[in-house]
């Protein structure tokens, strides 16, 4: 009968904390279908960092580098888009906050019909980098230390979110298909994470929503000097996310797009009113690295003016926290 239950042997907490920090992947957003994956707004320990790399293979009737999802009837685009970025989580007024930047890059090609003229176009290079800031207003306070991180459970948490894209991506006004959008645009939203049941790795379930409005400036040099205006676009993302094991999870994803009516030199297109559905599988490879694989597709897309697209997505997120890295180095001694 050994009574030697020495507390110093209790190092398992480190594993739990690490899992808590990086289970979600700090940044995994993509403009293709303009939907962040589930678990994006779970909160890690303040001071955490992440570098995401997201690769999308896209097909549809809109340019995936354009979050306005402007539909080009009859067009067929194919794109390979990668996004790389950096995110940092910190405490602001005792609430969790995140600042991130993400840079899209890749290539897109397809048949584009403008004013009755159909051409095959392609573009490649860098798109518009996007800055994102989120701030939690309801839910657990910022995780200032490891005990806070261990005790984190989202419960019902609400953030405010602001995105701003900087129009410095590659742009050629002589063609309608571009990676940069040549205008300012951004988004405001309120990410919601609603914990359903226990918060135990292996059986966590969440319902997550992100109602948001995209706002667009004018592109006054669109397709050889035309003016492109886009009305605000409302977007609701929803995810039902569930752990399968401590490392493997999945989500059912839904997105609703409404509005975003585009006007080119006074000629007005159609409003969006479309639904996209999909799924995501996520796997936490180790304490630092998370992978996801997902597929999404629009469903009510039979009309010529309907948004039509589908995308395969693979994301890889590498996260770290200086404290945890130090512990890992000690462990490997």
């Amino acid at each position, binding site marked *: *009968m*050994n*009574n*030697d*239950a*020495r*507390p*110093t042997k*209790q190092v*398992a*907490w*480190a594993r*739990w*904390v690490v899992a808590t920090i990086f289970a979600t992947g700090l940044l995994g957003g993509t403009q293709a279908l303009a939907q962040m994956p589930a678990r994006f707004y779970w909160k890690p320990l303040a001071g955490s960092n992440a570098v995401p790399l997201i690769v999308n293979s896209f097909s549809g009737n809109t340019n995936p580098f354009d979050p306005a999802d402007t539909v080009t009837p009859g067009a067929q685009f194919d794109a390979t888009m990668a996004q790389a970025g950096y995110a940092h989580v910190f405490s602001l007024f005792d609430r969790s906050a995140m600042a991130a930047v993400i840079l899209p890059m890749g290539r897109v090609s397809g048949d584009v019909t403008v004013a009755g003229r159909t051409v095959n176009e392609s573009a490649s290079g860098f798109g518009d980098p996007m800055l994102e800031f989120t701030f939690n207003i309801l839910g657990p306070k910022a995780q200032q*230390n*490891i*005990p806070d991180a*261990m*005790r984190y*459970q989202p419960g019902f948490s609400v953030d405010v979110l602001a995105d701003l894209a900087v129009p410095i991506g590659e742009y050629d006004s002589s063609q309608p298909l571009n990676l940069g959008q040549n205008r300012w645009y951004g988004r405001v939203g309120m990410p919601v994470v609603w914990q359903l049941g*226990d*918060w*135990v*790795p*292996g059986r966590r379930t969440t319902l997550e929503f992100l109602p948001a409005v995209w706002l667009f400036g004018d592109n006054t040099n669109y397709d050889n000097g035309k003016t492109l205006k886009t009305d605000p676009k409302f977007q609701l993302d929803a995810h039902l996310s569930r752990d399968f094991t*401590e490392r493997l999870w999945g989500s059912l994803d839904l997105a609703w797009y409404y509005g975003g009516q585009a006007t080119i030199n006074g000629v007005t297109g159609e409003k969006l009113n479309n639904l996209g559905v999909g799924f995501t599988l996520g796997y936490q490879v180790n304490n630092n690295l998370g992978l996801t694989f997902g597929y999404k597709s629009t469903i009510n897309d039979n009309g010529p003016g309907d948004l039509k697209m589908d995308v395969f997505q693979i994301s890889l997120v590498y996260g770290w926290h200086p404290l945890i890295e130090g512990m890992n180095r000690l462990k490997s001694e």
Partner: protein
Amino acid sequence: METAMQPAARERAVRKTLLGSLGLVVLAATLAAPPPASAADSARRPNIVVIVADDMGFADMGAFGGEIRTPNLDSLAKDGVRFTNFYTHASCSPTRSMLLSGVDTHLNGLGNMSEWIAPNQRGAVGYEGYLNDRVATLPQLLKDAGYHTYMVGKWHLGKQPDQIPRARGFERDFALLDGGGSYWDMTNISAVAPKSVFTEDGRYLTKLPKDYYATKTYTDKLIGYIDANRGDGKPFFAYVAHQAPHDPYHLPKDWRNRHVGEYDKGWDAVRQERLKRQVEMGIMPAGTELAERMWFVPDPIVLAPASRAILGKKMELYAGLVENMDHHIGRLVDHLKKIGEYENTIFIFFGDNGAEGTDLFGMIAGSPGSRDNLYAAINWNQTNFNAWGDPGSWVGYGPMWAQVSMTPFGQFKGWLAEGGIRNALIVSGPDVKRPAGSINHGFMHVADVMPTLLEMAGAVYPATRNGEPVPPLMGKSWGPMLAGKADSVRTDQDYLAWEVFGNRAVRQGDWKLRWQFKPYGKGDWELFNVAKDPAERNDLAAQNPDKVKAMLALWESYVKANNVILPSRGPFDTLEKDMPQRVTVYPGFPPLIYQRQFVPPKELLADPRP
């Protein structure tokens, strides 16, 4: 199963024959006899509720200095009397055997726990590992005296049909026969007996009731038993043997987060706070020292905040488990008040031994590749912090918090230091004439319960059972104490002795002689004045050889009278080699860990010269 069915079938046949004739006899007796005097007497006799908490510590209740919120137990203490010098045994079934038989463990069958019967004890009378049939039981004698007898909770005194609660005198029972297991289902601790065994009214259960949760279900069942026989004029004896707060700490979700972060400050701080309150309340005398922190437990100051949070969470769960038990005890008390029985009910509450400081789960399942480790991987694998309390989780709080539970004493369950055998006792009810809310320091023992209750119930302890002499009661009735006529039922010459797992102790008056395996003991006899030194910090054997000699004589007398056979093997055989070398723990030593960053005077700060 066959052995279980045969007596049952016989019983049914006999019952059928008897029932017919019994009806005639009862009818004739009713017509012929005057109104039964015994019914009137019964109405005046008190109901008895004995509540035993499993592994609960001396200092956990609010009424004994704990910060754990136990309003219902505190209320019993406020209405009754708290006793601070009450002894149990160092482990579960030995204590329970003495409670229910009034006889020393080495005579009643629990000379060793069934799990640890040594090779040289096998087959010896008194070492059966279950409550043997030589002893008369408290429920049987009370039943014979006209009491209804009910039992709910943990039994741990035998599983065979002739050893279960129904066979030992309880009319109604809902019992866990094992020593522990899940609070939510029938999952038991180890692969050797993977399914917990339960009985209800003498039948072995194939499944548990819907919405089973141990503490709640036990309480519900008992209330049902009480209600079922209400109004027949007979008093009842209820033995409520809660599984709580034995590990694993299984508790409903809404009881898990009532102390979040409160224990991050660490065990030393909580022990100091508890002792301060104990002294203020009069539980312990002024000047009482805390037992030294166990030598293998670090000062929490050296731990990372996360370690303190994780270890603190274990104590949070324990506190929640105790509070949940208190809640259900409150439900029982409220029910008795509602039906008008509270005022006529004696309550006795105590913990069955010291708090649990052993890593029971690690001991059973801690070796990868073992049978029990595989069983744990399948059944006890909910290790995540947030899963603690759920089915499949196993949390025990370890030696550091066990010492907190046993403030101010040293050591814990399984050992014969005060922290292993001294526990908090509350007695309240109509026969308690001492001032309500008072505290008494008389020298008491769990085996006293039986003579006390027999006296209250007007029952008699028999000289023989089944034609054989019954071992003598070892305890003394608390009658004079409860009546306020004496401060203790023991004189300075009376003594008590203990032996389990080869550890041994004798207490007489203020003195205690103790032999324990290294490194918890010295592997030799130690002498303590537990009145002045309840924490057993100062071994006085060398200065008092005559006292040692005199108490050794008492020990020898005890061995002879009770057929004590020291085990040839036991759980502590290799402990000295397995554990860190014991050293004395001094507060503030080593200074190294208490130093702070030196901050020079501001006026002497300077940048390096070029």
